């Protein structure tokens, strides 16, 4: 789907974070319990942040149509093909980081751009953390 409005981008971000939270919560077992519980909590917090941004960040002056940003390019549908949970988690963080990075170039509201950029950076930090566990 074309993410052609501010609200569509934010709503899709909520959808992605909700899926991520469900994955982490459902796989928080054994040696992954602590790190996945932490990540699930982080995704839940992001959902709340994104919903607040969707509500407070909107500016009627700049509701211009957004082009060239498609949800199909940033999907978590094929994550299960990555195999074991740690590898799936790595893929999740990769997809999310790319989504926020690309999204930050599309949104016309500076405050929201900064939030998206920080979230992309956080996704990258999580990837580094997960990579260490994979070694």
């Amino acid at each position: 789907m074309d993410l052609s409005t501010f609200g569509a981008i934010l709503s899709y971000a909520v959808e992605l974070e909700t899926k991520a939270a469900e994955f982490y919560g459902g796989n928080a077992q054994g040696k992954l319990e602590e790190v996945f519980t932490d990540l699930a909590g982080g995704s839940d917090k992001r959902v709340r942040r994104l919903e607040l941004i969707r509500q407070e960040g909107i500016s009627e002056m700049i509701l211009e149509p957004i082009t060239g940003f498609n949800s199909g390019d940033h999907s978590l549908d094929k994550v299960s093909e990555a195999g074991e949970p740690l590898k799936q988690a790595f893929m999740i963080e990769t997809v999310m980081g790319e989504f926020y990075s690309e999204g930050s170039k599309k949104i016309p509201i500076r405050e929201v751009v900064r939030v998206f950029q920080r979230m992309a950076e956080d996704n990258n930090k999580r990837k580094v953390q997960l990579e260490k566990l994979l070694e």
Partner: protein
Amino acid sequence: MKTDVLKNYIDGEWEESAAEETLEIRNPATDEIITHVPMSTVEEVDQAVKAAKAAFQEWRETTPYSRARFMFRLKVLMEKRFEELARTIVVEHGKIIDEARGEVRRGIENIEVAAGVPSMMMGYNMEDAAAGIDEDCVLQPIGVFCCVGPFNFPNMVPLWFLPYAVACGNTYIVKPSERCPMSQNLLFEIFDEVDFPPGVVNLVNGDKRVVNALLEHPDLAGLSFVGSTPVGKLLYKKSAENGKRAQIQAGAKNCLVVMPDTVLDKTVAAIMTSAFGTAGQRCLAGALIVAVGDIYEELKDRIVESASKLRVGNGLDEKTQMGPVISKSSRERIIGYIEKGVEEGATLLLDGRGIKVEGYPNGYFLGPTIFTDVTPDMVIAREEIFGPILGIIRVKDFDEAIEVINNSPYGNAASLFSTGGKWAREFKYQVRAGNIGINIGIAAPIASFPFSGMKNSFFGDLHGQGRDAIEFFTDRKVIISRWF
């Protein structure tokens, strides 16, 4: 959704109207009846004004700080029900969900500004106006005010006025649009939860009979209105005849001037929202592109290309970029203007008449429509259409563009798209319109600024929002004192 009859909110209570007549409210995307609105009676108007008058003395004696705290509570409760308010607006009006969210946001911003009333209501003074004589000026509330809301921003517009009026110590009556009353009625559920003293805020549903009854009521101090110029002029006259303060924000025919030095990508994107946002049903909509010199050919092609890609549909779908127009009759009226444009000799580049929206066969949809070869004397260039129709006028230079704008009887908004500071400065200086955009397609003032307007776009002296609103809703009292 139940198809029941909306109630009035008078003196702190929800009351079923005694009205014999009701109006159907239909979802513009589906044509389904969603509720009914009562055409309230003159007696109910009298009841509301009496309740507001009775509440006034105690309310004006409440301190500004206490009144400001009601505004804080109102904001918190509106934020809690934000998405519900936005979705209600979409269902009754048809605009897309992002536009509805933007509308709720702007309404809340007015409450946030009005919460600053402890500072904004401060007066001024001077010692020794004459030797040993001091002079003070204080701002005092006046009494009962009302507003008549438009259909296009059914939730937001009353909040251009009510928060300031009430924060200043006045009491208030809202007559919401009879075409889009639901989100305002939902807002009054929130007012009820805020728990204002009974009579401070009141809601009376109805049509022009309610408006006339309000204006004729001896205890009403003033009226705020947003709507068309013909109705606005009538109400302004009637307000004066009845000794009421009035602020009348009326119609528009806004020009977007595009200079050859503009950044075209960003300009075209801004034009899309300006012309087709809210399906063109807004007083800040860009109705006419004034293309200066060489920019014309590429601009025309890019505008048509972008507009033809806009996704028209149900506003609740996040993919939708333009919703339906408000009613079947509005759709027919707008189609009449398209036919008129063709008849007048304008060239129809994009025809929105044949649009079909899958899944919504009965919705009041019209696609974006673009004319070129428009001249200022044409009906489609002179009259406010209030629909998704954009006309392109070609001019040779900047001066001719200014002439086109200033010859219009309207003066609501005008925008310039240019990278040249010199053009921007000249534009701001010369154009006779109240809301000016420089590389902005929708020049919507934020809440701490007045929502301006000139010529036939505004009647009165003080606008809605910001400090203008504080001045409108207060009187100045000068006290000269000496002590023996």
